[in-house]
């Protein structure tokens, strides 16, 4: 009975899923005719609808332009480097935070910490970045003052003027800003774990670390995997606002990423074809990454996006 019903065409289920498909066709697939812009020379065109029809195709010229750009290599290295750096450090941070928070038994404390850490999400990067810049300033910034008082350094360090510090600064400030917000989904996943499992484990004599390791972590593993797969696919995307506000002319060697570079030479100059081509290029890589990592994950972890 059970087996036959699962092979039978389940119309209500199919219908529900198709509602999403119809939505995407209208709001996502219909506008995709815009991708054609990447394959035509429409830089500086004002009447886009007309130009979409009248302008000739130039093949992959816009993509080649980007790949041949003098700075392509540098911004690519920075984008990937910064993202890998962030993936290794920023991705686990909210998970660890959620696990630690889960171990707190004092409900009031738990809620307070959760609420406080959730706040920075609402402060825009313009403001948050401004706070970071003034704290790191070599001119009486609090970090330098503290380090000097502790006798760790003699002369103040210009953290933001040194490209070597940039990835760390971006990562750490990103973690602080996103920690509480990022932990919400893991807390929800933890809340969904069946209490009986813990009770059974206690009876079996499992200690807290064992419970964390054998119940909590597996309980949220599928959420972790999904978010990890999606993060991996974002390898070429950057938190634009954050990078843009923290970068300056002296750390540009490490802070110029694809998004900021394209913003400077493309978007603000109405180079539609060029910017669309870069976007399509990025999307294509992201799609490949998701497909690849999802396949691997299905094979080895037996979990994936679906």
């Amino acid at each position, binding site marked *: 009975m059970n087996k036959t019903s699962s092979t039978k065409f389940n119309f209500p289920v199919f219908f529900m899923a198709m509602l999403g498909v119809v939505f995407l066709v209208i709001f996502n697939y219909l506008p995709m005719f*815009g991708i054609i812009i990447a394959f035509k020379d429409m830089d500086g065109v004002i009447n886009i609808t007309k130009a979409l029809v009248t302008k000739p195709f130039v093949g992959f010229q816009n993509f080649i332009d980007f790949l041949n750009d003098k700075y392509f290599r540098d911004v690519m290295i920075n984008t990937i480097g910064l993202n890998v750096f962030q993936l290794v450090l920023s991705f686990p941070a909210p998970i660890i935070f959620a696990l630690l928070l889960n171990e707190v038994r004092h409900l009031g404390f738990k809620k307070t910490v959760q609420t406080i850490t959730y706040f920075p999400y609402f402060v825009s990067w313009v403001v948050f970045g401004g706070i970071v810049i003034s704290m790191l300033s070599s001119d009486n910034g609090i970090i330098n003052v503290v380090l000097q008082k502790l006798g760790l350094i003699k002369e103040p360090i210009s953290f933001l003027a040194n490209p070597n510090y940039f990835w760390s600064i971006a990562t750490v400030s990103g973690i602080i800003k996103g920690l509480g917000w990022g932990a919400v989904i893991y807390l929800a996943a933890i809340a969904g774990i069946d209490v009986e499992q813990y009770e059974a484990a206690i009876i079996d004599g499992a200690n807290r670390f064992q419970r964390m390791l054998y119940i909590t972590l597996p309980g949220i593993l599928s959420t972790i995997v999904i978010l990890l797969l999606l993060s991996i696919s974002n390898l070429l995307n950057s938190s634009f606002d954050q990078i843009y506000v923290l970068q300056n002319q002296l750390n540009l060697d490490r802070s110029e990423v694809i998004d900021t570079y394209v913003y400077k030479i493309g978007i603000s100059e109405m180079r539609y074809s060029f910017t669309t081509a870069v976007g399509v290029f990025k999307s294509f890589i992201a799609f490949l990454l998701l497909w690849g990592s999802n396949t691997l994950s299905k094979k080895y972890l037996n979990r994936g996006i679906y």
Partner: protein
Amino acid sequence: MFKRKSSLNKFDYFNYIFLILISCITIYPFIYVLAGSFNQGTDYMNGGVYLFPRVFSLDNYKMIFNDNRLYIGFKNTIARTLIGTPAGVFFTAMVSYGMSRKDLKFKKQIYWFNLFTLFFSGGLIPYFLVLKTLSLNNSFWVYIVPNLYSVFNMIIFANYFREIPEEIHESAVVDGAREFTIFWKLYLPLSKPVLATIALWVGVFHWNSFFDSMLFTTDPKLQTLQLFLVKLIKEASLGQGQANIRVPAHVMSTISITTVRYAAIVVSSIPIFMLYPFVQKYLVKGVMLGSVKG
């Protein structure tokens, strides 16, 4: 609940200290912003306001609250959040239910059809042209309809639904329940934590939105709160220049963009912030009790 012992071991001490430390770091931006928002603008620019306002002033808030657009903005933002959140969460959850079922035909294809849109888009102008064709531009519904469905949220939902023991579904089918009833009466109530999370995401998204208001509407009556605040901050840079007009010092403007921006953050984030405890309830205590037993 299952462990009454209140003694704290080493790990607990470490944990508490660590979390307090994290809280101190993350609460600082809030204090900084709050102090700045209550400080007089020109005085603030002397620097050194870190914890408390030095020259207390309500001018930054007055500037925001004296503007009629604030109330229009609040009205629109509240409306779109109140309508858009339940509608978006419900629609996405329903699709997710379909997507989470094992017996969904063409499951793989439909998934990739969904995932494709996470990355590829046609760009802003083609999107606008579609909205215009649907007569959604310059309409309140441009805030609601295009945001009914989110692929990302669908993935999270569907993942959660899959974790719900299959026996629950089976026994309901045996009882003759229809799929929609199972989704509505069984799955949704069992998914409160994720429901709360997604509602939070969608709600905050609606609350913080200004991009659609900025590009897809020109009617000032449809302006959202965040768009108003973005504009107010931009306009404050004009106020700053106005000091250029030769005026006696006593009538000189005391506003600075920085402090107005801080006040704007406070005004815009406090309401949504206050809603958090209601969501939090489900994140901390929302435990499935005896679900398998049915």
